[in-house]
C-alpha cells in the first residue's frame, strides 16, 4: 500500500510519539496514584494542594472561624486560648455536646476513628491481613457485643441520649465539610478515608478503655503454672494481700458482715485447685500493661495553706501522640466543667466545675474469668451444661480485610459469655480448648450517665449519687468540694467470689462454678472526710485483709506507701508541694531492696570495677532522678536477681516462662526470710544461699554496666529513654518524641517509664476562685504538622505545669482569648 509523504511523516513523527508520550503520561499518573507497599501514592501525597503539605499548618495559623450549621439549636461560641484549649460557651447542653464532637473531630478525628476501629476489631480494614488475629480476638472477647449492650442503655436515658446524639451529629457535621486536602495526615499515609461516626463508637471507646484497664488474663498463665506449682505455692508467688499495704480505705475501717457468702463447689479441690492440665501452655499473652495505674489524692482544708481542699490526679497510661486527652471547658445553662475529655466520648472526664473536683485511678480488680466448655461438635451449636446439651447463640463476625475478601468467624455465646478460644481460634496456651470469657464489661451499663452527673455535681451527695451509675472499668473515684469535703470510693460492679475463684480457668460444665452474684454496693471500699485529712489511691489493694470479700487483682503497693507517707507528713500544703509529690522520684521498692543488697552482697569478692558500681548503690539516695546512675544499676540488678531466684523453678517443666511474680513478692519474702525456699537454684546440685543470689546477680550485670557507662548510657534518664510514641508506634518514629530526660519509673509516684506514665497531671485548688495546674505529654492538635501537636511535651518533661485559664461566662474581652469560633444555626 502506498503511503504519501505526508501520511508517512504523520505516522512516524506525530502519531507514534503521541501514543508513546500518552502512554508514558498515563503510566506516570497511574504510578503516582498507586500505593506501593506501605508508601503512599506519591502524586496524591506530594501534591501541595492535596497531599501532606496541606497538613503543614502555618505557625501563624488563625483558628478564628464562623461556622453555620443548621443542626445547631442556637448560637454558641468557642474561645480558644494560647494553648489551643477551647472554652465552649452555649445556652444549652445540646449545642455544647455538638460542638465538643465538632472540635474532637476537627483536632483529633484520625485517633478517635482508629481507636474505635481497633475496639471493634476492624484494624484489618485499614492495614490488611496482619491484624486478623487482633480483630478476631476483639470480636471473640465480645467487644462489639459489650458496646451494643451499652448503647441500648445510653440511648434509653434522656440525658445520655441527648449528649451522645448531639456529640455524634457534631462529629459528622465536621466530617461532611472535610475535603480531601484537609484529611488528617494518617489517612493520607495509610490511604483511606473516614467513615461517619455513630453512637456505638462512643460505647466502643469506653469498652476499649475497659479492656485496657480491666481485662487481666492471668487466669490462663496461672492455669498453666498449676502444672509446676501447688495452689499453696501459687499463693506465695502471687499473694492476694501485702503486709506493707497502705490501703485506700484506711486501716481500721470496719466492714459489714456480708449478707451472702458465696459457697465453693464441692469438687473445688480435686477439679479446680489441684487439677493439673498439661494441655494448657503459653508464652506471655499480649495483655494489658500491668503498669496501667495512676495516682490520685485529695487533701482537706485543714492540711492546706489556703484552708481549701486540693485535689490531684495523674492517670498513668501508654504515652501516645496524638495524646489520649483533649483539654477543654464546657459552659452551658446546666454546667461549667473544665478538664480533659476523651476524643470519642462526650463530656469532661477528669476535672472540676464551680463546686467540686474529681479524678480517677484504676482499681485493677479482676472482673474477668475464663471457663472451659465442651461442645457437642465443631459446629459449636450445643454445649454441655448441667448434664444436657444446651443451645449456644451464634454470632457471625465479618472481618473485612484490605485488599482481600472478608473473613467470617463464628463466635458462640453461652451462659459463660462469648467463647473466645476454640479449635478455630487457638493459642499455644489454650491448645484448641473451648474457653469462654465472662467479663463484667458485657453487662448492660451506662457509664456516661455518671459523667453527666459528675460534670454538674455540686456536693458530696451529688458525687455519691452519680457514682451509682458506674459499672466498669472499676475506678478509685476521688472527690473534693469547695464546701470542704473530700472522699474516695472504689466504684464498680464486682463478682462475688469464693476464695480463689477465678484465679485459674474454671470448669464450665454446670452452674456450680458460675459467679453467685455481685458484691453489694454497700460494701464499696470508701473513705469520706477521714481523720488523717487526706484520701488517696495509687492502684493498691483497696482494703486490708479484714475485708470480708475475696478480691483478686493486680495491685501495686509501693506508690501508695510513698503517697500516703508524704501526705501524712505534709501540712500547710500548697500547689507547689503537690507538684513535688506528683514528681516524687523516691523509689520505695529500692528502699526495701537496697537494704537487702547491702546486707547480702559479699563485698570481699568484688573486683575494682564491681566495687565502683556497688559503691554507687551503697551511696544512693534512692531517688530515681534523670541523672542518677544508681537508679539504672538498681533496675538491672533487681531484674537479674529475679531471674536468678525465680527462673529455675518457673522453667522446670518448660522453657517458657508463663508469668512472673511481682517485685513485691521477692522483696517481701527475702526481707522476712533469708532462707526463702525459692532462693536455691534447683538446677544445681549445691544449695545456693541468699548471699549467692545477690552477689552472683550483681556480678552478672557488671559487664552490661561497664558497656552502658562507656556509651554514656548509664544515667537513668538516658537508659530509660522516655518516648511518647505516635499511635502507630515505630512505624512513624518521626511523629514521636523520643529521648525525653525524665526521672521516675515503676513503683514510683512519678510513674514515668519508657513509654508509659502520667498521661495527665492535674492539681486543683478549690479556693473561692478555683486554681488549676495542668499538663499532659502532648498537645491539643492531633496534627503532626501543627506546632500544637506536641506543645506541652517539654513542659511535662521538666515536671512543670500550666495554670489553666478558667473562663467566666461573658468574659469575652479577656486577654487569654486568642481565637474565637462562632457557631450559629444560620
Amino acid at each position, binding site marked *: 500500500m502506498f503511503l504519501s509523504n505526508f501520511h508517512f511523516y504523520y505516522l512516524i513523527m506525530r*502519531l507514534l510519539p503521541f501514543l508513546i508520550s500518552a502512554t508514558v503520561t498515563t503510566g506516570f499518573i497511574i504510578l503516582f496514584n498507586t500505593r506501593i507497599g506501605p508508601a503512599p501514592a506519591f502524586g496524591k501525597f506530594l501534591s501541595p494542594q492535596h497531599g501532606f503539605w*496541606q497538613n*503543614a499548618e502555618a505557625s501563624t495559623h488563625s483558628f478564628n472561624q464562623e461556622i453555620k450549621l443548621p443542626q445547631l439549636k442556637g448560637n454558641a461560641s468557642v474561645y480558644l486560648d494560647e494553648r489551643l484549649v477551647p472554652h465552649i460557651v452555649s445556652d444549652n447542653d445540646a449545642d455544647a455536646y455538638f460542638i465538643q464532637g465538632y472540635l474532637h473531630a476537627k483536632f483529633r478525628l484520625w485517633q478517635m476513628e482508629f481507636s474505635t476501629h481497633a475496639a471493634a476489631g476492624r484494624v484489618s480494614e485499614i492495614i490488611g491481613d496482619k491484624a486478623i488475629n487482633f480483630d478476631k480476638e476483639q470480636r471473640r472477647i465480645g467487644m462489639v457485643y459489650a458496646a451494643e449492650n451499652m448503647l441500648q442503655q445510653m440511648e434509653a436515658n434522656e440525658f445520655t441520649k441527648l449528649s451522645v446524639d448531639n456529640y455524634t451529629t457534631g462529629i459528622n457535621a465536621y466530617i461532611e465539610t472535610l475535603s480531601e486536602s484537609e484529611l488528617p495526615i494518617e489517612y493520607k499515609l495509610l490511604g483511606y478515608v473516614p467513615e461517619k461516626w455513630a453512637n456505638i463508637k462512643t460505647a466502643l471507646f469506653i469498652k476499649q478503655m475497659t479492656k485496657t484497664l480491666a481485662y487481666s488474663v492471668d487466669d490462663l498463665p496461672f492455669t498453666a503454672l498449676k502444672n509446676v506449682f501447688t495452689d499453696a505455692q501459687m499463693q506465695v508467688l502471687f499473694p492476694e494481700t501485702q503486709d506493707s499495704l497502705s490501703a485506700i480505705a484506711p486501716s481500721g475501717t470496719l466492714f459489714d458482715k456480708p449478707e451472702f457468702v458465696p459457697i465453693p463447689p464441692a469438687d473445688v479441690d480435686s477439679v479446680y485447685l489441684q487439677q493439673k492440665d498439661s494441655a494448657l501452655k503459653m508464652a506471655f499473652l499480649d495483655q494489658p500493661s500491668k503498669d496501667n495505674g495512676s495516682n490520685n489524692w485529695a487533701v482537706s482544708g485543714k492540711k492546706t495553706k489556703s484552708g481549701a481542699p486540693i485535689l490531684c490526679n495523674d492517670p498513668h497510661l501508654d504515652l501516645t501522640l496524638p495524646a489520649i486527652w483533649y483539654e477543654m471547658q464546657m459552659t452551658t445553662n446546666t454546667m461549667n466543667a473544665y478538664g480533659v475529655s476523651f476524643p470519642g466520648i462526650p463530656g469532661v472526664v477528669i476535672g472540676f466545675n464551680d463546686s467540686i473536683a474529681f479524678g480517677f485511678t484504676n482499681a485493677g480488680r479482676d472482673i474477668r474469668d475464663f471457663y472451659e466448655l465442651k461442645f457437642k461438635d465443631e459446629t459449636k451449636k450445643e454445649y454441655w451444661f448441667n448434664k444436657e446439651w444446651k443451645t449456644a447463640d451464634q454470632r457471625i463476625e465479618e472481618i473485612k480485610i484490605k485488599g482481600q475478601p472478608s473473613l467470617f468467624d463464628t463466635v458462640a455465646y453461652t451462659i459463660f459469655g462469648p467463647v473466645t478460644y476454640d479449635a478455630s481460634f487457638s493459642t499455644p496456651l489454650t491448645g484448641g480448648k473451648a474457653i469462654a470469657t465472662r467479663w463484667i464489661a458485657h453487662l448492660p451499663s451506662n457509664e456516661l450517665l455518671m459523667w453527666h452527673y459528675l460534670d454538674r455535681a455540686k456536693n458530696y451527695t451529688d458525687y455519691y449519687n452519680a457514682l451509682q451509675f458506674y459499672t466498669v472499668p472499676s475506678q478509685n473515684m476521688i472527690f473534693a468540694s469547695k464546701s470542704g469535703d473530700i472522699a474516695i470510693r472504689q466504684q464498680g460492679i464486682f463478682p462475688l467470689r469464693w476464695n480463689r475463684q477465678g484465679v485459674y480457668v474454671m470448669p464450665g460444665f454446670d452452674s456450680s462454678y458460675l459467679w453467685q452474684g455481685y458484691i453489694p454496693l454497700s460494701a464499696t471500699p470508701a473513705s469520706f472526710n477521714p481523720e488523717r485529712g487526706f484520701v488517696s489511691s495509687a492502684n493498691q489493694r483497696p482494703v486490708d485483709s479484714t475485708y470480708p470479700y475475696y478480691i483478686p487483682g493486680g495491685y501495686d503497693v509501693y506508690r501508695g506507701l510513698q503517697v500516703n507517707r508524704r501526705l501524712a507528713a505534709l501540712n500547710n500544703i500548697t500547689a507547689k508541694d503537690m507538684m513535688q509529690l506528683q514528681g516524687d522520684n523516691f523509689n520505695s521498692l529500692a528502699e526495701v531492696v537496697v537494704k537487702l543488697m547491702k546486707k547480702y552482697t559479699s563485698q570481699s569478692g568484688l573486683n575494682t570495677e564491681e566495687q565502683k558500681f556497688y559503691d554507687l548503690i551503697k551511696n544512693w539516695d534512692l531517688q530515681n532522678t534523670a541523672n542518677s546512675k544508681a537508679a539504672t544499676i538498681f533496675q538491672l540488678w533487681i531484674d537479674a536477681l529475679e531471674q536468678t531466684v525465680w527462673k529455675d523453678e518457673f522453667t522446670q517443666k518448660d522453657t517458657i516462662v508463663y508469668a512472673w511474680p511481682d517485685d513485691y513478692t521477692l522483696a517481701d519474702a527475702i526481707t522476712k526470710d533469708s532462707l526463702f525456699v525459692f532462693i536455691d537454684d534447683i538446677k544445681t546440685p549445691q544449695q545456693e544461699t541468699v548471699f549467692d543470689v545477690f552477689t552472683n546477680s550483681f556480678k552478672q550485670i557488671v559487664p552490661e554496666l561497664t558497656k552502658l557507662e562507656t556509651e554514656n548510657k548509664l544515667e537513668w534518664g538516658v537508659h530509660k529513654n522516655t518516648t511518647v510514641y505516635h499511635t502507630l508506634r515505630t512505624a512513624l518514629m518521626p511523629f514521636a518524641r523520643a529521648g525525653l530526660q525524665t526521672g521516675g519509673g515503676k513503683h514510683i509516684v512519678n510513674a514515668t517509664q519508657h513509654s508509659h506514665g502520667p498521661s495527665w497531671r492535674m492539681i486543683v485548688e478549690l479556693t473561692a476562685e478555683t486554681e488549676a495546674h495542668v499538663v499532659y505529654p502532648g498537645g491539643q492538635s492531633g496534627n503532626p504538622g501543627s506546632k500544637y501537636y506536641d506543645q506541652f511535651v517539654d513542659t511535662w518533661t521538666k515536671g512543670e505545669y500550666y495554670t489553666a485559664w478558667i473562663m467566666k461566662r461573658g468574659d469575652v474581652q479577656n486577654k487569654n482569648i486568642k481565637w474565637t469560633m462562632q457557631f450559629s444555626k444560620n
Partner: protein
Amino acid sequence: MDNAILKKLIDTNPKIIKMKFLSAMLLTALLSYVSGLYFPWWSIAVTAFVVAVAIPQKPFHSFLAGFLALFLLWAGLALWIDMNNKHLLSLKIAEILFKTPSHALIMSVTGLVGALVAGFAALTGNYVRKKPSE
C-alpha cells in the same frame, strides 16, 4: 508574501519562540493551580495537555514548558507552605519516606513528580497537532 512564508517567519522568530514558551509555562502553572483547587491532583496532566495543544511549539519546548511549570508550581507552593510551617512537617515526612530529614529533598521530589506528569502530558498535547510548529 503568502501565508506559509509569514507563518515560517513568525515560527522562527526567537522572540516569538521565547514568548510562546513563557506563556505556555505560565498558563500551565496558573491553570494547574486553579484546577488543583477543585479537581484531583492529576488534573495537572489535563491542563498541561490543553495548553500544549493550544500553544504550538517544538515538542521539546512543549515538554519543557509543562515540566518547568509544574516543577516551579509544586516546589514553589511547597516552599511557601514549608516556610510558614517552619519545616515542622516536611522534615518528618522526608524522614518517613526517605529516611533523610531534608526539606530540600522532599520539596525537589514534590516538584519532580508534578513536573514529570505535566511534562509528558504537554508532550502528548504537542503531538495532537498534525504538524508541529517549526
